């Protein structure tokens, strides 16, 4: 197949960007949830 490397690269880019973005959002959600738990505990202690 001619120009397969370009088609393959474009294909990989589409899913890599989506995947990396979703991972980044999931990581940020987990971090924020941890922070909320920590802040709630801090608030209860006061």
């Amino acid at each position, binding site marked *: *197949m*001619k*120009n*397969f490397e*370009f*088609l393959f*690269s*474009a*294909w990989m*880019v*589409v899913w890599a*960007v*989506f995947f990396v*973005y*979703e991972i980044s*959002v*999931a990581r*940020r*959600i987990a971090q*924020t*949830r941890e*922070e*909320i738990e920590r*802040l*709630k505990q*801090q*608030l209860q202690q*006061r």
Partner: protein
Amino acid sequence: MKARITITALVALLIFCAGYAALFIAPDEATMHAIQRIFYFHVASWNAMFCAFFVAFYASVAYLVTGKRKWDALGVSGVEVGVMCCTIGLITGPLWARPVWGIWWTWDAKLTSTFILWLLFIAYLLLRGLVEDPEKKASLSAVFAIFASLDIPLVYLANRLWRTQHPQPVIAGGQGSGLDPTMSKVLLLCLFAIFCVMILALMDRYRLELLRNEAAELRYEIESRGLDASDGQETRALQKGAQ
């Protein structure tokens, strides 16, 4: 959580079907052959970008009208997801252009206005990071998002208004435009698949922003209690000093 897993699994299945259709079911284009198959995800990512930026525009206007924080959260979510889709389009475009045009990039009206749009919304995200006051951040962001959105019609119309290296639109592009029926069906499937991925990303990003707002409120409450406590300590110290 169970519903979310089911939705994600359905979207993953949809993506698989769309990918299979784009690579194996859609017919080969007469002049570009296999490389034209980038079209199905290149166009779909632009479509998703327009939808995400429209959400950001609508939410920004709604925030300025109502002042409700949920609109600001939706606005930043739309911008971030839109920038992601725009990034995909800006990378897949040159990968398609190189074997077809012989160049990676050209500064024609379509490509330049798109690049400016990407830069504008990157600036929006940077601006949010620079302002600390939540009210000021939300208002400034909303105004900036509306200003940046003025470039969206230009991006859409650029190859209709001016002669560009970028090809004329194949759908609703006037005389001589149009797609093979099988290509149209595959394109519709890909548009729907990427749109669903965009909606999932938007929902996740919106959830993150709501959680961040909750954390900010808790931090503010702790700080205000801390200030109350220190105020009390200061008052006691002053009273002791006076005695």
